[in-house]
């Protein structure tokens, strides 16, 4: 039974995508997107820690298994996909290309949920490639020039990430004893693998790219604003988590891997602050959210780095828990942008209220979902330095998210009688409620912490002051100082602005070379030269 759930999680969206071959089904598929992730949600609730499902066709194994940290992320992600799917049905109701959108959506969904279940290298790589490449269709859906630029940059980076991972997997496989493709065998072989530094570097590059680790983050602030609202929600909430689960699955926590944990933690913390610093210079609320995702994923990666450095397997679950809040809350934020855009007058205030609550939750306001997420990872950021950095990051996040809220309200339609479509409102509200309450349920339900701890006075104050300080700073910044430099979306990407011209010049050279090579005398002498060269080479070997 649980095996069937695991199998249905990627297969139902796949089957729905296949069904889009029929034009009739394709036009109606948008209304059923809400159903596609439900097996994944059920699996997250029912199939945790169950026996793995192995499809062994003569040694070409496909293994699916659900470990507890993956289950948390799978459940939150599936919920986000489902609600964003419902939202998309309304949001893209009049889009003539919605059939194509549904296909991209379902394929990305299959991969996005698949990465949480895959238990062998081949299945994982397949799922990861699926989520990476199919998401291109989501980014370019609007068909604008900007969307195409974002799409191309996204695709180039995604393929580079795939290449890093393929190389890492091949090196891991070579280090694994026997023919096993199981991830756990590969990870067990990692600490003693001869190519260890290469493998870890490639894994960090491949997964860091997806998770938005600076400087590999450049695709996020381009892709998120360019995509339609529900697609941005899943890009930011669900798809970047493929990178997080990759790190969780492939880094050997609890093993001796000197130095790497510290490197990862430093990269993560740098990303956390970098995202805030660039984010507050942005005017488009969706871009601000993208930079906030960069920052939040930085915190998550830092947690994983600390877990690796400290040899603490248990902290991995806390990092996953922290990411769960981000899945739900960031998804809700993106959905809110679409709701606000169709909203005016007093209604706007009613929508901004839950958004404001989510903003404070991001900063870690106690009693909210974000507060409990921050509380859970408090022990990981132990010691004076890490504690201070953690609080400072909470301050920064608050500043950034208040900045988002202020930019968001400018987006309101300004027409008091306009009301957002109910098909947009209920998924947003459901997701917002899930973001505020869901982490609590997990926190208490899976024994991450206790109610007494969450309600202790010192803990409350430790959670409140960064939010208050952030609020003050953000309002001060807003009131007195918008003299921040205008940083283009994708910041360091400006360094590559001459790349197209350079590549084109290289291409011209190549074409000139080809003209030379295709001349008869050149080709004929190449043929004879090759014959002589081969004789010499063979002679030398003999």
């Amino acid at each position, binding site marked *: 039974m649980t095996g069937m759930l695991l199998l249905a999680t990627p297969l139902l969206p796949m089957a729905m995508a296949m069904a889009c071959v029929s034009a009739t089904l394709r036009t109606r598929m948008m209304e059923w997107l809400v159903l596609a992730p439900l097996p994944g949600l059920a699996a997250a609730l029912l199939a945790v820690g169950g026996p793995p499902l192995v499809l062994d*066709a*003569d*040694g*070409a194994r496909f293994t699916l298994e659900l470990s507890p940290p993956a289950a948390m992320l799978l459940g939150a992600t599936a919920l986000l996909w489902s609600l964003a799917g419902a939202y998309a049905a309304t949001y893209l109701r009049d889009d003539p290309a919605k059939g*194509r959108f549904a296909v991209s959506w379902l394929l990305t969904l299959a991969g996005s949920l698949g990465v949480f279940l895959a238990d062998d290298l*081949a299945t994982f*790589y*397949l799922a990861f*490639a699926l989520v990476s*490449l199919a998401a291109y269709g989501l980014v370019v859906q609007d*068909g604008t020039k900007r969307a*195409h630029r974002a799409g191309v940059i996204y*695709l180039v980076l995604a*393929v*580079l990430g*795939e*290449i890093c991972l*393929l*190389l890492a997997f*091949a*090196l891991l*496989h*070579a280090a694994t004893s026997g023919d096993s493709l199981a991830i756990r065998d590969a990870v067990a072989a990692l600490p003693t693998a001869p190519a260890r530094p290469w493998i870890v570097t490639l894994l960090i590059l491949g997964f860091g790219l997806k998770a938005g680790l600076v400087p590999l983050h450049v695709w996020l602030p381009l892709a998120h604003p360019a995509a339609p609202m529900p697609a941005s929600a899943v890009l930011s909430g669900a798809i970047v988590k493929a990178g997080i689960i990759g790190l969780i699955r492939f880094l050997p926590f609890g093993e001796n891997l000197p130095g790497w944990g510290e490197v990862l933690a430093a990269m993560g913390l740098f990303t956390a602050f970098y995202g805030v610093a660039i984010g507050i210079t942005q005017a488009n609320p969706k871009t601000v959210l993208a930079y906030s995702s960069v920052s939040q994923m930085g915190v998550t990666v830092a947690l994983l780095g600390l877990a690796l450095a400290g040899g603490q397997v248990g902290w991995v679950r806390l990092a996953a828990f922290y990411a769960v809040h981000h899945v739900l809350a960031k998804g809700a934020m993106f959905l809110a942008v679409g709701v606000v855009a169709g909203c005016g007058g007093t209604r706007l205030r009613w929508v901004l209220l839950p958004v404001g609550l989510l903003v404070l939750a991001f900063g870690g306001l106690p009693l909210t979902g974000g507060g409990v997420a921050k509380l859970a990872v408090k022990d990981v950021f132990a010691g004076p330095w890490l504690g201070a950095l953690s609080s400072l990051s909470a301050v920064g996040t608050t500043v950034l998210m208040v900045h988002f809220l202020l930019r968001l309200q400018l987006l309101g339609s300004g027409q008091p009688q306009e009301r957002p479509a109910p098909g947009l409102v209920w998924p947003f509200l459901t997701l917002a409620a899930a973001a505020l309450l869901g982490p609590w349920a997990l926190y208490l339900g899976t024994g991450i912490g206790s109610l007494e701890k969450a309600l202790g006075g010192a803990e409350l104050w430790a959670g409140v002051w960064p939010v208050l300080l952030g609020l003050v700073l953000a309002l001060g910044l807003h009131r007195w100082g918008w003299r921040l430099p205008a940083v283009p979306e994708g910041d360091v990407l400006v360094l590559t602005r001459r790349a197209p011209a350079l590549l084109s010049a*290289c*291409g011209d050279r*190549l*074409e000139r*070379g*080809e003209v030379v*090579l*295709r*001349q*008869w005398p*050149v*080709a*004929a002498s*190449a*043929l*004879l030269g*090759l*014959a*002589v*060269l*081969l*004789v010499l*080479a*063979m*002679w*030398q*070997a*003999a």
Partner: protein
Amino acid sequence: MMLGTTPGGGLLAFALALPVLAMLLAFVAGGRQAGRIALAALLAGLVLSLAVATGVLRGGEALVLTLGGWAPPLGVALRADGISAVMLLTTSVVMVGTALFAFTSYSGDRGESRASLVFWTLLLGLWGAMNAVLLGNDLFNLYVALELLTFAAMPLVCLDGRAETLAAALRYLFFALLGSLLYLLGVALLYGAYGTLDIVLLSRLTRADAPTLVAAALMTAGLLAKTALFPLHLWLPGAHAGAPAAASAVLSALVVKAPFFLVLRLWFDVMPELATGLAPQILAGLGALAILFGSALALRQARLKLLVAYSTVAQIGYLFLMFPLAGAAGATLAGAWTGGMLQAVSHALAKAAMFLGAGLIAEALGHDRLRDLGGAARLLPMTVVAFGLGGLSLMGLPPSGGFVAKWLLLNAAIETQQWWWGLVLLSGGLLTGGYVFRVLSASMAGPAAAAVAVVSPGRQAVVLVLAILSVVLGLLPLASFGLVQIGRLAP
């Protein structure tokens, strides 16, 4: 051990006789019936090649037929080992697909019975020559088969009679003749040295002395010219892009694989000691250059068929990475061998689908300029999907056959500590992704294009099936690839 006919060896005679008989029958029956005869023969050939593959797999050894009961060195033998069987099957599948695709275009109905007759007899001749290359066990017979192949392929290039395709065909012919000459010279040297040209016998006799090495080098260089390995590719883009789509498909998918197949025979069967030292590194180096250069040029092409043709230049390069990987340290690495053969098969299926798809797009739009491809996806959705699936296999993305092939080669590169070939594999994938993406994004832009001709869904379906086969290849259980290891002569 003398070679004797094995059980099931009789099948091999049929594999040679069937195309020839069908060709004669087509001549007698004329252009209107030629298509039907060819299709029937090809379907029978598909069954036959399945039977050969099953026979080899069941028996666990090569099928052998000594013609007239005379064992080599007196007589001539036909021999089907694992790689023969696999390529025989691939040839049949691609041929049947091409025949179904071309069936209505060359029906001979609208008073064009001559073009129809020429196309179908040439296709059958090409098929027969392919089978002869795959089954031949005598180096001189293989020379004859190779020449037959060139003479059947050359007129297919200029079937439409335009001046530019005629020029491309002659270019192809001249360069192929140059290659044949070198090969023949090598064969003569070998015959002088050993008194036999039978591959199985030679594999036990060859020494690494001067005449043998010169012979091997000459034969290899000649075969490389015919397979268009960089920098000997001058004839390929023009010939493959200029030919009618159905011809391009068989030329790119199958014909260039035949000389490659003989290089494999020469290096791994006749003289396994060749595959050590510097020589295989040279072959793989040219392969690497082909991958990078061909893919980058494909990225720059303005016309779809030229793009696909340059992609063939690049994909041939992958095949040659096999040499240092499968022959490393004297031991033949099973993974690299399987990976290389899988690359040959998956490229054959994917490239056939892509050339046929490009032909359909050109037919429907009246041109194949990439810049003006917008709306093709709405007009021919199945075809564009097929092109994308073929591209998936060329890029080496899972779960395609190309992925498994590149994964096996990559693993072999790591195991033998020749990581630089792994890097070439991967960067080739990136460039391939680039040109496949160019085609897909160009054809998906914009509203439905205006069609100048109606393309039947049946022909689109043929293209899609070939593309799907190239992807599904990757889902076959690894054990079934063991077929390509059967009957290898090297220890």
